[in-house]
């Protein structure tokens, strides 16, 4: 990695690679497509904070299951709620769960991974065994346990997804941090008298940041899939709060009457996940050309 290692490098030196980054980025097909799709979903979530065509919470059974029209662009559901409004607010729930769950995975996972790489020995062994172990509990399984004890809900799904995110971040962090620890500049820093904490913060973390950003993007996509599945099962986001998974569950009972109701929310999930995956792939190519060649 040729990026400047210390914060003392001049801003001009940093500014040049950034413009180079954007020039390359705009020519990268999956990065552009991924960004457009991700921003589209993010935009929908932000828009729902200030405006939705109709209220996503008001029930109007008289106008239930309307086909698409000028006033209800994608029609209404069985309770007469506007589909577009439900999709917009659903984007917000999805992104919120995803951000918090990835946040949990990122903070615990990166922390533990950095400690494992810095301390080595039995600390590393213990952390790695523990993270292997956590892999035996997919998010659905932990969500089931939590829901059986504490009841279903957003907190249950966030916790379950967050826990399942931790081991991936531990592995990625520890793997790439170990590679940095083996570099000469870390040896130099040690010779200069820096402790392992300072080396971790000043040298290791900045150098693995791009890998972590890529991983976080992909984990975000996985979190959205998990959130949708949990809400679909009734373990996650609870009504009346709209969520894409819940909408699919509602739509399933009406497959013969209104098949399209089962198409929109799933398409929304797929667009969000596809966007984030493409964005992650693009970022990987752009931030670390060496990784791109290995694939």
């Amino acid at each position, binding site marked *: 990695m040729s990026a400047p290692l210390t914060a003392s490098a001049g801003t001009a030196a940093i500014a040049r690679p950034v413009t180079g980054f954007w020039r390359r980025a705009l020519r990268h097909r999956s990065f552009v497509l991924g960004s457009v799709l991700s921003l589209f979903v993010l935009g929908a979530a932000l828009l729902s904070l200030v405006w939705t065509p109709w209220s996503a919470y008001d029930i109007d059974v008289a106008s239930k299951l309307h086909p698409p029209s000028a006033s209800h662009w994608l029609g209404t559901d069985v309770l007469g709620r506007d589909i577009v409004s439900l999709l917009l607010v659903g984007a917000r729930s999805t992104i919120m769960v995803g951000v918090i769950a990835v946040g949990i995975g990122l903070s615990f996972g990166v922390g533990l991974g950095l400690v494992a790489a810095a301390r080595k020995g039995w600390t590393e062994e213990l952390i790695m*065994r523990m993270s*292997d*172990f956590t*892999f*035996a*509990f*997919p*998010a*659905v*399984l932990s969500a*089931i*346990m*939590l*829901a*059986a*004890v504490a009841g279903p809900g957003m907190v249950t799904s966030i916790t379950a997804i967050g826990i399942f995110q931790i081991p991936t971040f531990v592995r990625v962090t520890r793997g790439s941090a170990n590679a940095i620890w083996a570099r000469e500049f870390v040896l130099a820093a040690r010779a200069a008298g820096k402790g392992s904490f300072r080396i971790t913060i000043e040298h290791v973390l900045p150098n693995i940041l791009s890998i972590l950003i890529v991983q976080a993007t992909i984990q975000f*996509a996985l979190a959205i*899939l998990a959130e*949708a*599945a949990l809400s*679909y*099962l009734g373990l996650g986001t609870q009504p009346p709060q709209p969520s894409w*998974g819940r909408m*699919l569950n509602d*739509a*399933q009972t009406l*497959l*013969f009457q209104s*098949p399209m109701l*089962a*198409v929109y*929310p*799933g398409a929304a*999930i*797929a*667009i969000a*996940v*596809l966007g984030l*995956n*493409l964005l992650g792939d693009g970022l990987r190519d752009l931030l670390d050309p060496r990784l791109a060649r290995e*694939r």
Partner: protein
Amino acid sequence: MSVFFLRRILTLVATLVAASLIIFLVLDALPGNAAQMLMGADASPDAVHALTVKLGLDQPLTVRYLLWIRGMAVGDLGNSYVYGTPVAGLIAERLVLTIPLAIMSMLITVVLALAAGIYTAANHNKLGDVGVMSLTQIGIALPNFWFAILLILLFSVKLQLLSAGGFAGWDDGIWPGIRSLLLPAISLAVVQAAILARVTRSAVLEVLREDFVRTARAKGLGKREVLWRHVLRNAMIPVMTVMGLQFANLLAGTIVIENVFYLPGLGRLIFQSIANRDLIVVRNCVMLLAAMVVIVNFVVDVLYAFIDPRIKVANL
């Protein structure tokens, strides 16, 4: 028995014990009194106490934990709090659906993924490669339960070829059962196959760049022969790792997919039991699923050593 296997088996046992401890703590110790939960807040203290004794919940935690472990060893998982019938029987009834479903979808996954992965690697950067890889990119983004609903829309609602749900059982022979598991298995498999195909492709491409491939070609072996005889065997290690990891996803997936197709499998049992607050059933089901994941990953680890003897030496 070499040191390698001994170490792996010790890790396996330790992992299973840790899993059982966590599951026991979360689903037995943490909720407090299961009898109270079953009878509701306004049950009389005497009745709650009687039920507590009847369910054996008056014994200390350690005793209950050890009894559970001993029960698992001899196949006696206790009785359901709600139905009063043995938990082992309830689970066994459901496994005749869940295990065939998992095996069917794993088979479909492997066939699809290897075919797509080898095809794309052999046609690297050609039109077919780009096309199939774009398809896998979309496949990865599909939630499997939504794909399942789309399949129902197509095959049950539009074409009316297959039923939208339910399980025919194995009593009328094997075909009705397989037929009712076909759509669920496909919807589980497609998404996993998309991931595995990408892994297979990059693993094969990686091996194709190795020196021994050039040597094999130089000694006169055909392209096809090198691919099947030398490349695939070496490319199998990363592919199997991902397959092992996918198995966990697959089991989690069956829980979701069983709900889509109203299949009376393990997943449905878990959800009924959560609704009924039948924690002893939930506990044993979760333990079973976790154990299956751990054991499959153990088997994958051991298989590595057979495929690639270098690993055994490195891990000593």
